[in-house]
């Protein structure tokens, strides 16, 4: 727990505030408008993206078709896993889908994995260098999850128009799912269906990660007395182990749904 005496509510409140720069509320430190930047989210996002890029670059230089080294082996198995998913789900071929899917999978996984760093460790270190608020898991920020989801959404719309043509895409709104006699209903239904894609993508990831983070905090709160230490350690370990499953699963689901949605955008088939 942080320095001064805090009530559990204060402790959790404190941990839910981002490191805000820009249009922020000076009292609550929450973002007051759109033009506020969550520096912690961006920072850890970049750090992890940089890590990925470095690994990719380091591998790219020593790539071999012969017996692969350890790094290549690890990355190859991830690439092959993603490739299999794309091949199984995605109709036709699009050279962007594979890199997109693996980027989502690995980046989201890495950002989720920040959850496994002890909740108080990095904020405590940040406090020493004068940073009051720090949230280390970028995927517990709606900014990140919606950034991914809206990027995917933009690609969905782009490929819908590219493959089906503007008219074909419009027809989908007019005549789905109930045929040509219920056009107004169709428009509403299809719009909801389309909008639900990015929203569900973003909120699912955010909700899972946020809840996971919250439970880590609640477990951390158990340290109100020394004799609770075993319980805290036991619960913390248990939840962390379980959380490994959750972070992987959420990253996988995000990737899978991206492939599925883009696959749907690529099928000009009228029945779906």
């Amino acid at each position, binding site marked *: 727990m942080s320095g001064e005496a805090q009530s559990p509510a204060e402790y959790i409140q404190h941990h839910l505030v981002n490191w805000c720069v820009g249009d922020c509320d000076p009292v609550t430190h929450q973002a007051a408008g759109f033009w*506020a930047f969550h520096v912690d989210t*961006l920072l850890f996002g*970049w750090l992890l993206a940089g890590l990925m890029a470095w690994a990719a670059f380091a591998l790219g230089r020593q790539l071999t*078709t*012969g017996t692969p080294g350890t790094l290549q082996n690890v*990355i190859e198995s991830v690439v092959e896993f993603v490739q299999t998913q794309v091949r199984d789900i995605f109709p036709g071929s699009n050279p962007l889908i594979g890199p*997109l899917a693996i980027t989502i999978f690995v980046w989201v996984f890495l950002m989720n994995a920040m959850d496994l760093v002890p909740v108080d460790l990095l904020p405590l270190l940040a406090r020493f260098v004068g940073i009051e608020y720090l949230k280390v898991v970028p995927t517990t920020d*709606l*900014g*990140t999850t919606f950034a991914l989801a809206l990027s995917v959404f933009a690609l969905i719309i782009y490929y819908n128009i590219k493959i089906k043509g503007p008219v074909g895409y419009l027809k989908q709104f007019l005549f789905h799912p109930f045929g040509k006699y219920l056009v107004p209903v169709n428009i509403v239904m299809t719009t909801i269906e389309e909008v639900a894609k990015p929203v569900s993508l973003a909120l699912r990831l955010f909700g899972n990660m946020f809840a996971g983070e919250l439970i880590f905090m609640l477990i951390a709160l158990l340290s109100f007395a020394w004799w609770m230490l075993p319980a805290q350690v036991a619960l913390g370990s248990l939840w962390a182990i379980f959380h490994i499953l959750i972070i992987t699963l959420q990253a996988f689901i995000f990737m899978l749904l991206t492939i599925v949605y883009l696959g749907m955008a690529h099928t000009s088939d009228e029945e779906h």
Partner: protein
Amino acid sequence: MNITATLIGQILTFAVLVWFIQRYLWEPLTTALADRQKKIADGLAAAERGEHEQELARKRAAEKIAEAKQQAAEIVSQAQKRASEIVEEAKENARAEGERLLAAANAEIEQEANRAKEQLRSQVVTLAVAGAERVLKKEVDAKAHEKLLADLVAQI
């Protein structure tokens, strides 16, 4: 917990990351994987071909060995035949030579015997003539009695 401009930053990060991953990881790695797959497939095919060829070579070698064995057996049997022929021939020659020598010896013996007979005859004639001279106390004219003597020689 509202959505802020962080969104824009993360979108840009995401876009750059996707580009980077595609450029430096996905494309080279999938190419390498495909290459390796092809290499392995080629290797397996080559191995299979090699095995097949080895099988063929083994068969050919077995055929060659069988042929060689047969030829060797033929040569040996021919040689044996030839050897017995030579032995047979030699025996024949020896027998013929022996017979020839025998015949020559016989002929010589006969010749010698005839010559001895001839000598004996002429000596007998001389003796007979000398005896008759002595009996008659008179010289026998060998010329006058040549015919008579020749008849005598022929009778002996």
